[in-house]
């Protein structure tokens, strides 16, 4: 737009395909900074259907000028307009940042963080939990506090979910003490009566420490899926070492992911 360029500095942003800014200096500087976006991108920034934005531009209700399929507007004015009318307006790069925050941790990274430990000593629930808590590799955690919370949870109902597996966990998540969710796998020296649902003695504990309830449920459901498979439990009974356990978990998770995406 030659007419425009003579009098103003033009900042042209090419939408979702990255920002390429051309600043054309001129004798009469600043004062007007126009942005140009494609109509579809504009609709996405305003979080509205394309036909609505198109209609509003045609009716003159939104401060955007149109030439062909391009929308020309001033960012500050449009933001003010959107605010006054209860609409959201965010430029493309800002949107991408928002999407990244809410990821969920899977079993494999959680178990890698939490570590796998064998021969945990103890004769009953309390002592076994005490020794296990000592092994948890998070220095920031107050071990005594964690132990008490695990016990509190056990007092509610047993976390033995059957087939010899138990999943002790605190009732509320611990976002302050740990940045990432983790699962500490503890194979017991000898099987202990956990008052599990099927009354079988528990030989392995997975201590779940999650940053949020969502994460907790996610890890729990995945773990439950693995445990449902009898061959997996048999595998556990062989007291495998860290690497083979982790690779077995990785395989199971792959199966899960495939099933999810079907």
């Amino acid at each position: 737009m030659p007419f425009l360029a003579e009098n103003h500095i033009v900042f042209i942003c090419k939408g979702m395909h990255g920002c390429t800014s051309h600043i054309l200096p001129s004798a009469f500087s600043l004062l007007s900074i126009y942005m140009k976006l494609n109509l579809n991108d504009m609709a996405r920034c305003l979080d509205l259907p394309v036909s609505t934005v198109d209609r509003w531009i045609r009716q003159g209700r939104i401060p955007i000028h149109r030439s062909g399929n391009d929308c020309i507007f001033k960012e500050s004015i449009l933001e003010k307009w959107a605010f006054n009318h209860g609409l959201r307006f965010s430029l493309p790069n800002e949107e991408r940042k928002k999407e990244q925050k809410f990821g969920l941790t899977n079993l494999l990274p959680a178990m890698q963080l939490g570590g796998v430990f064998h021969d945990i000593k103890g004769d009953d629930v309390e002592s076994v939990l005490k020794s296990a808590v000592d092994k948890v590799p998070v220095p920031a955690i107050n071990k005594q506090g964690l132990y008490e919370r695990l016990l509190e949870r056990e007092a509610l109902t047993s976390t033995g979910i059957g087939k010899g597996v138990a999943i002790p966990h605190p009732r509320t998540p611990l976002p302050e003490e740990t940045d990432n969710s983790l699962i500490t796998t503890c194979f017991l020296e000898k099987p202990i009566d956990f008052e599990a649902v099927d009354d079988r003695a528990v030989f392995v504990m997975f201590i779940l420490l999650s940053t949020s309830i969502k994460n907790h449920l996610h890890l729990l459901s995945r773990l439950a899926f693995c445990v449902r498979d009898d061959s997996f439990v048999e595998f556990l009974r062989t007291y495998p070492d860290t690497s083979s356990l982790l690779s077995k978990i990785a395989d199971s998770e792959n199966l899960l992911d495939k099933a999810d995406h079907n």
Partner: protein
Amino acid sequence: MDAQLFHIFRNTPLGRETLLQSIYFCKKVGASLIIYIPEFTKFLMYFENDVVQIDLDNSYLTSPETALKHAKELLDQGKIKARFLEPKNFTASTLPDISTNFDFMCCPRSISDLSSKIGLGYIGPRVRRIVNSARFPVLITSPVFKKWRSIAVSFGGSANAVNALKLGFRISRASEMPLSVYTHMENASRESYEEIIKNENHEEEMDHYVTEWHMFERGKFEENIYDVPHDALVVLGAYGHGLIRNIFFGSKMEKIQSTITNNLLIAGPNYGLGQK
């Protein structure tokens, strides 16, 4: 496609040919057919920046009692269902408003003049105004029903021509018919045309859909048009270059529509606005 084609039914043998063409187009492209059997000779179409009053030629109102029956017979023959449009808004008591959010419109070369005037080289003024203002392409039918078996896009390099090309891709994708592009090179090299296509990011589609790209370097345009197959649907853009240039040098669209008898699908300057 969930596209809609708007057709104004004329209850005469000429209208029968036009309806057959619309039916064929809809079946090939997968669009649904919307038929308007006019009750009054006039109606208004309100576009974005223009209101066009269509004064239909009187033959459109021939024997209204049989119009619906004839239309339905043709639809049954073509094994396609259509919706009949009943106008809901009226600007005046005899002036219905017809909406303009269709995806295609079909009409013969002229809708306000006598049928005797419909011949090569003539496109009625109303039809021209519709093409100029509408966001949808207009299918201008040949006087006799003819099945088209391929698509020919006339590409001249202007912005409208690119629109026509996009339209060609869309039709080719929906109908799975072969697509060829015809360019009459006037003082520009082959590379410049390819450059235009690359700038609009249509290279892949060119490779995917286009079977042949005919570039005419020599000869007069009217003679080269002979190469366009007789059973092709010709897709072109209207009002490609500015007004003054059209007056002095003539427009491709005018030349094409005065020379060939194929069905024409014309994309106006507003085609493609506000679409994904």
